[in-house]
């Protein structure tokens, strides 16, 4: 009980402190002379955010860049050896290709399915909308260990003749075929796709929630206007709704893209990269926590950061376009 109260008190104090912080910052800005107040205020507003980012991500990221030029225990300098080692290793090249495959498939499917659920459920009666969204959301609530168990029960393989406890093989054997070792089937990257299915299963809820919020924000007026203009529901969706939530679609796409670039838990839990399913995130994790090769891990992160440059470039353009309407 005391513990509960203690926890409660810390929670209240913590949250309170955050609010007070802004109050103080705001007051601080307000005592400044007019001109300075307005010049400084934006910076004060973003200050805590950037302090947190600088401390928790930027500083470590810079350190990481440094480490990427050092040896596995971050002691001696090794130049660009970490990079050349990585990039010249066949395994890593495969890993890159796999990751690329993930980047190609997952964000796209996530957006499409998430949008489909968001928009289709939106048209059901509120009761069904709620129910269906909750179902789609369910997997998000499951931790990755749990998800591993869940999908274990789907992809599990037992030798022929034994009772299958994996759903897919149960179906396959019920149809009279031999059970298939799903996660071993690297032809056409089948196993990679199966892992992607898992990630999609776990992640569509995320896209759905964000897109759903966006769809609800589309001015009803414009939808009505389109109806009057004789557009079918499909046309309304593609010509009126989608363009207006484009920002959110891009947001979801980029977030998914980036999270796929560093995806690791799905792969780690299910295959740990065997049978040609390795991805960069998993490789990074293993380099850091299994091989204790800080240098290699750091250079992977640096490569990842470099890979976001095109994404940033797109964002810049997106902003420009957004602003040109203003």
């Amino acid at each position, binding site marked *: 009980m005391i513990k509960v109260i203690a926890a409660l008190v810390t929670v209240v104090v913590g949250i309170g402190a955050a609010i007070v912080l802004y109050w103080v910052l705001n007051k601080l800005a307000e005592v400044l002379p007019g001109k300075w107040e307005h010049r400084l205020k934006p910076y004060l507003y973003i200050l805590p955010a*950037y302090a947190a980012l600088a401390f928790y991500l930027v500083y470590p990221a810079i350190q990481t860049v440094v480490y990427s030029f050092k040896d596995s225990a971050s002691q001696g300098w090794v130049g660009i050896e970490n990079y050349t080692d990585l990039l010249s290793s066949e395994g890593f090249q495969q890993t890159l290709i796999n990751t690329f495959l993930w980047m190609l498939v997952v964000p796209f499917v996530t957006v499409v399915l998430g949008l489909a659920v968001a928009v289709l459920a939106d048209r059901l009666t509120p009761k069904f909308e709620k129910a269906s969204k909750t179902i789609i959301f369910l997997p998000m609530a499951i*931790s990755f260990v749990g998800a591993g168990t*869940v999908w274990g029960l789907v992809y599990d393989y037992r030798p022929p003749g034994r009772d299958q406890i994996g759903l897919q093989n149960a179906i396959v054997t019920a149809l009279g075929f031999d059970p298939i070792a799903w996660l071993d089937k690297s032809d056409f990257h089948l196993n990679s796709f199966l892992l992607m299915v898992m990630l999609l299963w776990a992640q569509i809820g995320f896209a759905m929630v*964000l897109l759903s919020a966006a769809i609800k924000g589309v001015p009803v007026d414009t939808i009505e206007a389109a109806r009057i203009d004789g557009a079918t529901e499909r046309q309304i969706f593609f010509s009126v709704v989608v363009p207006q939530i484009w920002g959110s679609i891009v947001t979801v796409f980029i977030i998914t893209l980036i999270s796929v670039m560093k995806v690791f838990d799905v792969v780690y839990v299910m295959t740990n990269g065997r049978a040609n399913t390795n991805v960069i995130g998993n490789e990074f994790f293993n380099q850091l926590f299994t091989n204790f090769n800080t240098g290699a891990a750091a250079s992977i992160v640096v490569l990842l950061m470099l890979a976001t440059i095109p994404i940033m470039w797109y964002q810049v353009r997106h902003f420009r376009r957004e602003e040109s309407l203003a």
Partner: protein
Amino acid sequence: MSSSTQTVAGVGTATPRTMRRKSPRGGGLEKPSWLARIVVAILCFLWIVPVIGLFLTSFRPLDDANTSGWWTLFWTPSAWGRMNLDNYETAITEANLGTAFVNSLAITLPATFIPILIAAFAAYAFTFMEFPGRNVLFLAVVSLLVVPNYIAFVPILKIYGDYQLTGTFPAVWLAHVGFGMSLAIYILRNHMATLPKSVIESAKIDGASHFQIFFRLVLPMSVPALAAFAIFQFLWVWNDLLVALVFIGPGESAPITVAVRNNLMGQAGAGQELITAGGFLTMVLPIVVFLAMQRYFIRGLTAGAVKG
């Protein structure tokens, strides 16, 4: 709509009552086609089957789970008799889930709320304030999305060590503030950009300071995005293992994830059956949160604000 109603015209006998139909027209989108319903139904089915599997398995003794698929339960009533709550009992007692639950809450609530507040302020500045370096700073946020947070563990832990923070709740809160910040800013700023600008202008005219505009206008109008992000951050913190393990460690302050992992899972993946039960127990709260947040996804929050 049907051909029979078309001919009613001059007859006038059709009572309006019989024709009365409730449809969400005007407000929402058009009534769902059957296609829409079927697609949703199929997706829901596919999505929930694995969960049902997990759910049923969590009541089964390990040996049963290892020898027959959970779906066989539907046609082998005998197996029902063997289902029990043992896994749950064990999970709850062994993992000390009661305390862990409280710990998880104490970690998750501030770790959800604080980053939202901080990010919302930053997003506000990015959306509604002009200042040099705005775009550059924002893009930095985007690029930080890709940085895996593990790289921060060592340096942060070093600093925490110096300030005796390790093992305290604020240590994890702050870590989550840092790690969740870029996503939060990104989502919130992209949402705030869609708010009607002239409403903000109107508040400026009414003499509201940025602080007041933020709390009284922008936050209430951003409720869907805030709810969306709150759900994610909540989930991410709730299900997080590594950050909690590193910054709090096992022990009396450990959250559920750490407790479940360390107290239930044996070597080489033993304890799977407890994981199913533990997994279900930990799912309950996120689902409740989701259901509670769902009502904030409202249509037309900004309807009626402006014309044009």
